[in-house]
């Protein structure tokens, strides 16, 4: 059974349909990507999945349970890291726990071991404005993880970073995901990033936005450093560009 599933999600805004009949699945341990041009409704779909927006039709199922329109179940992370500038990194990371009523001391004790794992140890008492973009993004990911340790919804998480930091973050993210057994659904408009990170890619396109294609990236093709230059990669890229092109 899929960990997270959407069934026939449709959303309209001011009488215009934005997304229609979206059916996607995220299995345990998978990294699935939603790829589409700007305005295809990717973020709208995320708002529905995280419960911030109620869909006109359809359901969101998390471990088989209907969580449509219920916020506080799955947290998501935006391109902006949204670390609160007036809280230290550790207080930012413990926020999901303290919001649930965990005591400050207890919350800190629980998050501390992860600082090492996420590569941000030593930053606990710093304020966000003292950290670089990559470090802030790691801290924000840790906060997302503290909120829901099974599924991470990431909305263009790395798009604000420079190319080199981004590439480092990709490698880091794939490793950390395996370590903490996190399943990820993420949005991007970066085709290279999608091929590099994903197990599967959903192409979202058209007006109203709907899933136009689903592409599985074979495990033997990915996760080696030369991927970006390999022939497989170009084949995937061609196929994706064609799929996106067809929808426009």
């Amino acid at each position, binding site marked *: 059974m899929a960990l997270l599933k959407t069934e026939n999600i449709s959303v309209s805004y001011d009488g215009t349909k934005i997304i229609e009949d979206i059916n996607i699945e995220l299995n345990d341990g998978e990294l699935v990507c939603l790829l589409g041009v700007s305005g295809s409704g990717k973020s709208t779909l995320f708002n529905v999945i995280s419960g911030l927006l109620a869909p006109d039709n359809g359901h969101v199922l998390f471990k088989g349970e209907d969580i449509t329109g219920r916020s*506080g179940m*799955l947290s998501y992370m935006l391109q902006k890291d*949204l670390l609160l500038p*007036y809280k230290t990194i550790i207080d930012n990371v413990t*926020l999901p726990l303290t*919001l649930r009523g965990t005591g400050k001391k207890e919350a800190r004790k629980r998050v501390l071991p992860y600082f090492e794992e996420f590569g*941000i140890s030593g930053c606990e008492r*710093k*304020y966000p404005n003292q950290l670089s973009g990559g*470090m802030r993004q790691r801290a924000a990911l840790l906060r997302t993880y503290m909120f829901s340790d099974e599924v991470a919804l990431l909305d263009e998480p790395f798009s604000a970073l420079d190319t080199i930091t981004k590439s480092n973050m990709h490698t880091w993210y794939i490793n950390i995901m395996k370590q903490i057994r996190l399943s990820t659904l993420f949005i991007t408009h970066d085709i290279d990033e999608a091929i590099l990170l994903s197990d599967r890619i959903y192409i979202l396109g058209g007006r109203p936005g709907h899933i136009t294609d689903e592409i599985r990236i074979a495990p033997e093709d990915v996760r080696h450093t030369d991927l970006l230059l390999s022939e497989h990669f170009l084949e995937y890229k061609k196929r994706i560009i064609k799929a996106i092109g067809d929808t426009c």
Partner: protein
Amino acid sequence: MKKSQNTIRTNTTAYKTLHFITGKIIPPVIAIAVFIAFWQYLSGSELMPSFMMPSPAKVIKAFINDWPVLLQHAATTLREAFIGLAIGIVLSFIVSILMDACRPLYNALYPVIVVTQTIPSIAIAPLLTLWLGYGITPKIVLVVITTFFPIAVGLLDGFKAADPDALKLLKSMGAGPVKRFIHIKLPYSLGYFFSGLKISVAYSIVGAVISEWLGGSSGLGVFMTRVRKSFAYDRMFSVIIFISGISLLLMLAVIIIKWLVMPWERRSKSVTGNK
């Protein structure tokens, strides 16, 4: 490597301090010195009779002579100002939180609050005295009225400045309106609050003094009226300087409190911890 970095850092700190002194401290000191020198010259010349325009030296003498009396009166004025300011702060918090939580209330009250600010406090002071007598009450009420506005408007702007994405994030984490307020809106408005408070502490002293002009048994305003009636202009000037001195100290206190309460504002913006 580390050592050279440290030297550079000390050098820049020293440079910054020097830059601060030459750029920010020396020019106003020169301006004030020129002003006082000109004043001294004027009062010594035939242009201005010395009883109307006492020389700076005379004012300083009056200031020293009156010091114990000034302190006594200041105690009264400060008490009125602080009580009024405290009530003003509490009131502005209550009103702005309610207005932020309830949109119709905001729309209804915001113009009213702005309009009340166009009424000069000096015009309502006599009315307050008529209604509430010569005691401490009309003074406190005037201080409350004058200090309420800058803080309330500051808070309301601060609540509005809260990042909508941050609010959305907390909502996605299941935080209700109260928690969203505590974790996002309140901290976001702190800077605005202190800007308002800085203005309000100065207003609180002015408000108390104006109100004391109209009657009372002690206070800097009462003292001012007395020395004015006895045509002691040098003592008038010394009270004025004393009052502005108090206001400046209070504003400085607000800046220090802000520095203590908002540690994240004083940290350097430099990027560290890159791996």
